């Protein structure tokens, strides 16, 4: 057999396998971004998907309960109650008013069950000199 064909077959097998694996990986881990405002307009099937929602942590709503941590995310005056049930400790940046990104599913009761929480302290990494009139 021609060397080029042999080589092409090898390349083909590798590419097809990896593409298939990638496709499975996408199916497994795809997460839809939604804003809190959008959630109310989603259809039933869309609501059952794995979602990623961002917002700010409403001050005073963080509650450490046995086995979970509850808090409320706020975005443009819309509120979303969240229960974090993941095992990893929450990041240091997670606190009142922090910008948070939660991943998980929405329950039938409208409470969002998050398996992952990322948080970014709103004031940091950011270039905003504050001439607070001092």
């Amino acid at each position, binding site marked *: 057999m021609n*060397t*080029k064909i*042999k*080589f092409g077959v*090898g*390349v083909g097998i*590798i*590419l097809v*396998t*990896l593409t298939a*694996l*990638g496709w*499975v*990986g*996408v199916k*497994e*881990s*795809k*997460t*839809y*971004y939604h804003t809190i405002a959008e959630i109310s307009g989603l259809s039933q099937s869309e609501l059952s998907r794995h979602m*990623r929602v*961002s917002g700010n942590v409403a001050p005073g709503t963080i*509650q*450490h309960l046995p086995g979970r941590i509850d808090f409320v995310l706020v975005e443009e005056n819309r509120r979303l109650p969240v229960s974090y049930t993941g*095992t*990893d*400790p*929450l*990041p*240091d*940046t997670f*606190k009142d008013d922090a910008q948070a*990104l939660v991943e998980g599913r929405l329950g039938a009761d409208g409470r969002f069950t998050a398996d992952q929480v*990322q948080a*970014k*302290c709103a*004031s*940091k*990494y*950011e*270039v905003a*000199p504050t*001439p607070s*009139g*001092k």
Partner: protein
Amino acid sequence: MDLFGSFALLLAFVCAIYAIIGGIAAIRTRNPFLIKSARNAGMAVCGLIGLAVASLVYLFLSDNFSIAYVVQHSSRTQPTFLKIAALWSGQEGSLLFWSLLLSVYIFSVLWSYRSKHPELMPYVGVILATVQLFFLVLNNFIASPFKMIGVAGPGGVISWLTQPDGRGLTPLLQYPEMIIHPPMLYSGYTGFTIPFAFALAALIGRYPGEKWIHLTRRWTMIAWCFQSAGILLGAHWAYAVLGWGGYWSWDPVENASLMPWLTGTAFLHSVMMQEKRGMMKVWNVWLVFITFTLCIFGTFLTRSGVISSVHAFAQSDIGPWFIGFLILILSVCTAAYLKNRDYLKSDNKLDSVVSRESSFLFNNLILLVACIAVLSGTVFPVLSEWATGQKISVGAPFFNRINIPIGLMLLFLTGVGPLLAWRRTSLDSLKRNFGVPLAGGIVAGAIAWPLGFKDLFSLACVILSVFVTMTILLEFYRGARVISARGGGNIFSSAIQLTLRNTRRYGGYVVHFGIVLVFIGISGQAFNQDKQMEMTSGSQMRIGRYTLVCQAFDTVPGPNYTSERVSIEVMKDGRETMMLYPEKRNYGDSQESGTMVAISSTPREDLYLVYAGHSPQSDRPVIHAYLNPLVKWVWFGGVVVVLGTILALIPNRAPAIVMQAVAQTSPGTAHASGAQAIPATVHYEGRRFDE
């Protein structure tokens, strides 16, 4: 001092423009005076940026809180080393630091080739100055680190303010690795500019032959070495600081640093095809173009806010500048390629599927697929929003599914590739080279299976690691045996001699061995365990063969923080071994807190303790314990990779026996430093000693 710094930056900007315009004029006129003055302007940029950086460091050290950047990243109580590291911990400062590193590379290149390659260097100078100019535009006009804080008073008069104290560095960055990780990674990113500039210059100037590859080999290896070290230090930082028990999470920032590493690795391998066989010329040129583009693209990704990431800098207005620059790079590269592609014709064809050539082709194919997978996973939210209107992200399962098999295939090729002969390999030589290592791998697999390596990928990793290690050892042994037979001496001193005579080849083997160690470390992930528990004085938690006993929970003051600390006694197999102190630091300056993980690391496993906060009801500390097997091998492998690369950078020692076979180079040339030593190594590199 801030005025001094801004002015130095402005002058650097002017010099870079001159280096470009003067350089183009020099290429047109071939006027020696112009060539020299454009080169000098290019080198002067380095000194000027150096002055700007020095003045910014001075502003930090003298606690000048009238400068916005200093206010945001420093405070009076901050330790001195962190005041210096604050230079690269924010957007503006890190862009300036980036410029500095780039200018140092450019200075070194222009200086070391000042009287060599007169046809090529003016082109290189212009391309380098253009890249430098882009960053200087950002430093000067878009993200200047020397901005002062001012408010508009009555009548539009701006009054300057000086804050009493700064806000302090983010606690996450207050860690010794902050000093070394960004400089390493940035040195990697910027270093790939050099091979890029030479490749583009050779293409535009139709510079004959493979010379640009010989000239840039060392520069590429230096950049690659920094990039590897930077990636692993970043992983170590995440592991030791972020407190989630792992070191790699496929975060966009991590991916951004991995992508140019993947294509850079492919480039380092595929250039050998061009050196030896005159093949893959188009491919090599494009690989280096892509690597450089990915360096810029990665910077764009992490700084523009396009992709959300935990580490990412805030959204900023530098995004469009980067897009413009990326378009410029790609259009210049494409135009140069279309115009001069006939000069990149291949000299040879692929002869056989079982050959060194094809192992390189597969290596390149796989590395490139890995890069495409990482890239598409990273920009998936942007792509999906563009294609379907819905923003969708993919997570770790996607990356792992593709990259774990890819990693194992690469590991396999690491063992097989270097032993295959060029053109075609006979069945006999396959048996001779791979019989013993293959048997060794199978035996290792048979031992590992009952020990608990039931996970398919982990088992494959064990088998392949042993296989690759044995092929490497066999190579050293065979070469050393030849030398020891001819010149006497024992096998070990012969192995050292062998290595020093062909550092590129044997240094490469050491790098491969380092990669094997990293893979062994990664395979340990399949056996990770973790447990979380609320503890009181005297309560116990068991994880693996460790028993953790909580001794005390107290508050301790530090230099610029106070810390909540849990004292935990660790018993291994029932015997008391040590105390570990996971803590949480609260920084007064910034009202922020930072978790300090307590890690006890052995080659077998890491015990990793996080103080996850205290329960508000009972006020008891919550401890999250992780048991991560083999993690230390990753860091150790990284050290071996770096040492191997350094070894490969050392010029060859005058070879006695080996060189006789290649009469066309006198042994003396190998002593010459820098570029001239490279062609000498090329002739016999890859030659089998027993053939």
